[in-house]
């Protein structure tokens, strides 16, 4: 089939997710096996017929695109969309997909405070757009929305497309309001068979250790018991972490069939003793054409298993506070029979004290995750009936399961406290299936191009699981493998549970785009979608979007400018309720009561019904400008947005009712901008440079939090958050206030320390009295004023140096570590954290502005040197590359805690976060917990071989 421009199906509004984009950069040092010299580059997707099973209603057909088409395709974008592929990806030891684009997309902030390999990355796109848990961008992998990121190995990712504006995201309807990240995996190409092998080895070390008082100094404090040892607790629970990655892939194909198969293996050790994971991923993609290439079929299969040692990151908290004069091992410090308790580890009869080494070495916390996904798709060319018409059908499924297991032996104080042993296991399954079918028409009428899509989508999710936990073991031999041996079950004190739930979404999709002379573009789309989670009165919603672009440089002669394009769009995207059954009046078991001589369960209403519960809706307006200069080597892109998110869902209490209900009551307004400037050298000479800088700002204000009698908080104010000070009834530090920016941290102002060692607070109300509640004000904001990504790639001959700097400016973080371990004073039986803020005189500190710190930072996130080893033409090797990478090289920040990273959410879910939870509450921001895994630095060596 001859590929002509006529056959190229143009953008609906995303121009391209191309397997070919990366060929733009001939200096690529990506680990992608597809980044090969242009001359050697095959025509991708040649086996695909006109109708392509890999297309979707949101992506352009990528069949038949030739190298070099990328630039033109990008020019068709009408929304605020970023496309990234191989050369744009971060390098080094990257185990999580989102790490590939961290710092690369203006407006998309991807964070993971600390270096816990088992912690998820959190992504925030353009500020707050929801008040519900899990309000991160929708992840779509190979057209499957709400896909698990664990299901794809970073090495198999071809491209990311990030839909930032509401008009673009409107096609994802009830799940688009937080933006959308589309991930496309690599597919085979028809050319001679290729084999690629990548491997990497890394060494990870602690990059930031908080200063605590050393033993001699601590011992000298009045009132301390000297246990005679000198223990560096952090050192005793950490190590150098070694990691290894191997990726092997085969690809190739004939005219009618293409295939790609890959195996990816990762073994990662965390710096915390006994933490890490090993992962095996396999993926297969086959495309086959039939019926004289009128039909094409595709099969995609992938399977990932990740065996995790979650470890005990909470040990970091106890390591900070553990008495440095205590030995690690000593069985005489606690009550009870000496030697019989705690396996020889030193423990103390003290509230909230656990030997960190014992925590890490004795307690098991394991998790086995598995993700299996499959997709079968077909497309048929109906050109014979109506010119330019095709039909696509696909069916896809994903099963995610995780088995969590813990065991605290009879000799552990932590997680047990009973000397009886305690084991838990829980299994969670999540299954999603997706059926999609749509008709697509693409016609050119002279200079006018028309594309129309109409389709149907049905997606169903089901979750179920069960678990049990119990203690009282005779022996530690079973760990968590023989729950029946726990006497708790015989005594009736074991815990058992199971659950099941499901939800479904049904949508009709329509979209049309018109372009004239490659100069005028307009795209209109809508998704009419229903969700089972909506209340009875509100079952279906309509999400429209329209965007337009004009290439001014085609209309007016502009000196210097290669392109000047203006874009504008308006759309509505939504968020369905985060949990199933949110609209129903739910009853639940509320503990047994005594009835007639026996205990029977009692039941009560735990959630009031709300048949009007609907979707959160975000109306967004985006205006953008793209400029290309210097033979299109220099490009500038600017986007400005204004969003109004309404009908946001919060749980509210009716004054007289014991049960809450979910209701659409809040409204927020956001605005911001994103700017990126990129330079790409032609790359012909022996020296070349490319680089880019991007920056973004997003501010969100809460407009209202009530509707009728329903009100979140009171009088337009809600105080949230829990600090880790003990016993303080005044710990709310997040103020959500109507009319104010989200992100506010609120509290008293510390004026000094009194003679008695207690804090003196400022009398902010000026009434002559200091009231722990009245005398508070806004102390800072947890959201950054600006985020920055700055990358450079310098090539000299066969050597390439690449540098990525990442920064965030103006955000504040509550340093809980200081509050708990620095401000409690010498009276406290815990060790004292000593930062520059340490006040020796202070006793028993409560939260104040003194514990909120500006966490502005700039970090050298990634530094890589690559050597493209020269290979002879015609040798067995197509290419050979050796890389050395350092990640998280240094951080410039005045923040005294573990990691100045933005805290978008309360990320202390180290303990058995069940797979069924919907993520973290976006309103619980701004705090670094004491159990934070410290940040780490990684050095790695990599090898890429292609034959």
């Amino acid at each position, binding site marked *: 089939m001859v590929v002509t421009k006529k056959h190229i199906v143009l953008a609906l509004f995303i121009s391209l997710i191309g397997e070919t984009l990366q060929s733009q950069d001939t200096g690529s040092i990506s680990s992608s096996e597809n980044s090969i010299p242009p001359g050697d580059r095959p025509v991708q997707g040649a086996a695909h017929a006109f109708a392509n099973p890999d297309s979707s209603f949101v992506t352009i057909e990528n069949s038949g695109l030739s190298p070099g088409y990328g630039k033109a395709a990008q020019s068709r974008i009408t929304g605020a969309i970023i496309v990234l592929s191989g050369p744009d990806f971060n390098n080094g030891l990257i185990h999580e997909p989102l790490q590939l684009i961290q710092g690369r997309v203006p407006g998309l902030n991807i964070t993971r405070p600390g270096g816990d390999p088992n912690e998820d990355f959190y992504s925030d796109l353009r500020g707050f757009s929801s008040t519900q848990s899990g309000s991160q961008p929708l992840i779509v992998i190979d057209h499957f929305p709400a896909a698990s990121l664990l299901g794809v190995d970073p090495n198999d990712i071809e491209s990311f497309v990030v839909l930032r504006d509401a008009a673009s995201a409107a096609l994802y309807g009830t799940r688009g309001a937080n933006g959308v990240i589309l991930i496309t995996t690599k597919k085979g190409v028809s050319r001679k068979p290729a084999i690629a092998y990548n491997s990497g080895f890394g060494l990870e070390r602690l990059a930031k250790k908080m200063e605590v008082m050393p033993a001699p100094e601590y011992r000298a404090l009045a009132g301390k018991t000297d246990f005679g040892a000198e223990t560096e607790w952090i050192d005793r629970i950490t190590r150098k972490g070694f990691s290894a990655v191997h990726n092997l892939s085969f690809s190739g194909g004939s005219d009618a069939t293409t295939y790609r198969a890959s195996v990816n293996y990762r073994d990662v050790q965390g710096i915390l003793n006994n933490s890490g994971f090993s992962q095996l991923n396999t993926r297969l993609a086959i495309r086959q054409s039939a019926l004289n290439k009128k039909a094409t079929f595709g099969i995609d299969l992938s399977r990932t298993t990740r065996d995790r040692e979650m470890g005990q990151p909470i040990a970091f908290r106890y390591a900070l506070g553990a008495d440095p004069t205590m030995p690690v091992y000593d069985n005489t410090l606690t009550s009870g029979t000496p030697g019989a308790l705690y396996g020889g580890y030193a423990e103390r009869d003290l509230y909230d004290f656990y030997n960190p080494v014992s925590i890490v070495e004795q307690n098991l916390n394991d998790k086995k995750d598995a993700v299996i996904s499959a997709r079968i798709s077909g497309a048929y060319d109906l050109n014979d009936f109506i010119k330019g018409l095709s*039909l696509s059908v696909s069916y896809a499924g994903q099963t995610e399961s995780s088995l969590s297991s813990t065991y605290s032996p009879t000799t552990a104080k932590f997680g047990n406290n009973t000397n009886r042993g305690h084991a838990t296991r829980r299994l969670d399954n999540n299954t999603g299936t997706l059926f999609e079918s749509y008709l697509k028409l693409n016609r050119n009428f002279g200079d006018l191009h028309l594309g129309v899509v109409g389709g149907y989508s049905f997606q169903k999710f089901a979750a179920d699981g069960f678990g049990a936990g119990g203690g009282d073991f005779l022996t530690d031999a079973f760990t968590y493998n023989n729950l029946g041996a726990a006497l708790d079950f015989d005594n009736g004190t074991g815990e058992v549970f199971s659950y099941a739930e499901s939800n479904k979404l049904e949508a009709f999709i329509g979209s049309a785009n018109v372009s004239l002379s490659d100069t005028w573009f307009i795209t209109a789309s809508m998704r009419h979608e229903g969700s089972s989670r909506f209340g009875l009165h509100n079952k279906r919603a309509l999400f429209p979007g329209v965007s337009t672009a004009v290439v001014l440089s085609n209309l007016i002669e502009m000196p210097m400018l290669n392109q000047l394009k203006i874009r504008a769009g308006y759309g509505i995207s939504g968020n369905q309720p985060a949990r199933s059954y949110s609209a129903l009046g739910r009853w639940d078991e509320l503990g047994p*009561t005594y009835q007639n001589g026996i205990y029977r369960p*009692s039941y009560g209403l735990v959630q009031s019904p709300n048949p009007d519960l609907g979707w959160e809706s975000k109306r967004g307006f985006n205006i953008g400008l793209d400029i290309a200069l210097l033979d299109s080597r220099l490009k500038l892109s600017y986007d400005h947005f204004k969003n109004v998110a309404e009908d946001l869902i919060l749980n509210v209490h009716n004054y007289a009712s014991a049960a809450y209900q979910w209701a659409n009551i809040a409204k927020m307004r956001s605005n911001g901008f994103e700017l990126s400037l990129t330079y790409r050298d032609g790359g012909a000479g022996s020296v070349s440079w490319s680089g880019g800088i991007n920056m973004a700002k997003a501010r969100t204000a809460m407009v209202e939090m009530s509707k009728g009698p329903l009100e979140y908080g009171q009088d337009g*104010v809600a105080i949230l958050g829990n600090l880790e000070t003990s016993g303080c009834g005044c710990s709310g530090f997040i103020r959500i206030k109507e009319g104010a920016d989200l992100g506010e941290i609120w509290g008293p102002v510390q004026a000094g320390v009194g003679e008695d060692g207690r804090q003196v607070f400022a009398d902010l109300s000026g009434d002559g009295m200091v009231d722990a509640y009245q005398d508070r004000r806004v102390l800072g904001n947890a959201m950054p004023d600006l985020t920055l990504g700055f990358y450079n790639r310098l090539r000299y001959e066969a050597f390439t140096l690449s540098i990525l700097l990442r920064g965030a400016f103006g955000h504040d973080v509550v340093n809980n570590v200081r509050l708990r371990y620095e401000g409690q004073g010498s009276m406290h039986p815990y060790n004292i954290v000593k930062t520059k803020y340490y006040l020796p005189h202070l006793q028993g500190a409560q939260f104040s502005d003194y514990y909120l710190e500006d966490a502005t930072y700039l970090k050298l996130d990634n530094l890589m040197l690559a050597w493209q080893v020269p290979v002879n033409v015609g040798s067995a090797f197509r290419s050979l590359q050796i890389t050395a990478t350092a990640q998280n090289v240094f951080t410039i920040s005045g923040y005294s805690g573990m990691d100045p990273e933005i805290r978008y959410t309360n990320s202390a879910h180290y303990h058995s976060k069940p797979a069924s939870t919907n993520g973290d509450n976006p309103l619980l921001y701004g705090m670094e917990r004491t159990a934070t895994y410290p940040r780490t630095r990684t050095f790695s060596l990599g090898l890429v071989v292609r034959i």
Partner: protein
Amino acid sequence: MIGLGLTFFSQSCTDLEEELYSQVTADNFFQTEQEFIAALGQAYSSFGGMGNHGHLWSINEISSDELVVTTKGGDWYDGGVLLQLHQHEFAPSNGFFNNAWGYMFGGVNTANRLIFQFEQLAQDDPSKQESSGKFISELRAIRALWYYWLMDSFGNVPLVTSFTVAEGEESPPNAPRASIFNFVENELNAVLDDLPTAKDASTYGRMTRWVALSVLTKLYLNAEVYTGVPQWQKAIDAAEEIVNDGPFSLEGVYRNNFVVNNQNSTENIFVYPYDKVFAGGFNWNMMTLHYASQTVYRLTSQPWNGYSVVEEFYNSYVDPAQNPGPQGLVWKNLATEQVQGTIDERLSNFVVGPQFNPDGSRAVDPGFDTSDPDGAPLTFTPQINEIYPNGWRQGGARIGKYEFEVGGTNNMSNDFVMFRLGDIILSLAEAKWRLNAGDAEALSLVNQIRERAGVTPYGSLTADNLLAERGREMFAEMMRRQDLIRFDRWDEPWWEKTSSDPKYKLFPIPQQQLDSNENLEQNPGYN
């Protein structure tokens, strides 16, 4: 393939009903009588917070002269909230007040909701009118009990009696204490005749006529405090009905009311039946015992070493001048050796002196204070060195009122006593004495209690000896604060507390409630 596509189309155009698996809603609940009783049960599980640290019981006890939670180095400072309570510097922001408020209004709200639901049910299905009516009477009495406690603690609380809130309805303002008093009185009298009178398994832990009369007794006994108008005769009438007509009798042995299996007590009128398996939440063993007591009682969890008994209060049992009775060896002061003192059977209220493991060895506290007189061996000394900052870890007798089960968990199985005949007898005696200081029956009633405790009967009644006897008998049963206020001793100094402002007779309306309800006003003196 088109056919395939169409097939899917037709199959998938589905309704979007929620499919339920492990959830119940009002639609698939309330089908059987059993399910109704399960719904009623929630009104009782509300009482399950009684034996926890940090709310209603704690604010009443720590603020009295019975109990104290000293700051033990870094332990138990908790932002100073516990010191505030004992020293009468109540701050509206103290979280314990909000916990107590939320706890009691939670009980009110549950009762309101269930009343609403049973009313709806009776409307929809006339055949269920009778049983619904019975449940509603029971719930109204439960709600009155919550309001009695709310009024006693906070005084002027909002009176919320309906489950539904009309559109545009304002959040409720404070009602004067006297009007809450009237509400409790009227409600209880209105339902009194609908409540069961039997004392058997079917009424154990349930609201009966006797429970309602007990509440009325206490309401009238304190009427002068609540409304300014004494109601001694009404208190006598209510108490006499319980004493004369009720199916209760004093236990021969005081302790029997508080043992692990106290469900057979002949004296207890209203309990919350705790159970370590089924109904957890009673954790006094954790709250009061020392870390090292874990081995003494072979507990499955390590205690928290919090609550101690104020020494003077402990001495009111063993001091022969205050409590005449048979003399024998008791622990006093630093418990270095046993000395002569009154042997009162009710000393079972305390855990005091040297502590021994089941094998006879001394329990040991390796973290002992260097200033602790006897060092590492665990000895609860009646004497406490200071309230702050370094109260001895082993200082103070501990609350031994409820028997600690050997091998127990952090959930005790003893049933928590809220009303019992012993208190009603003393209340009856007091009311009679108030009307006639020389009332012979009053004296004989008090002496019934003293004789049961094995101590010498009083020759006459005075305010002092009546209050002291109530103290000894009712220790830790959430009566002391009320008694001290009624006997006008609340403002007086006691250990580590100076004379205090009379405003502290009411707890402050919690700051969080004021912030969340603009129609609420703070109690007098707190602003």
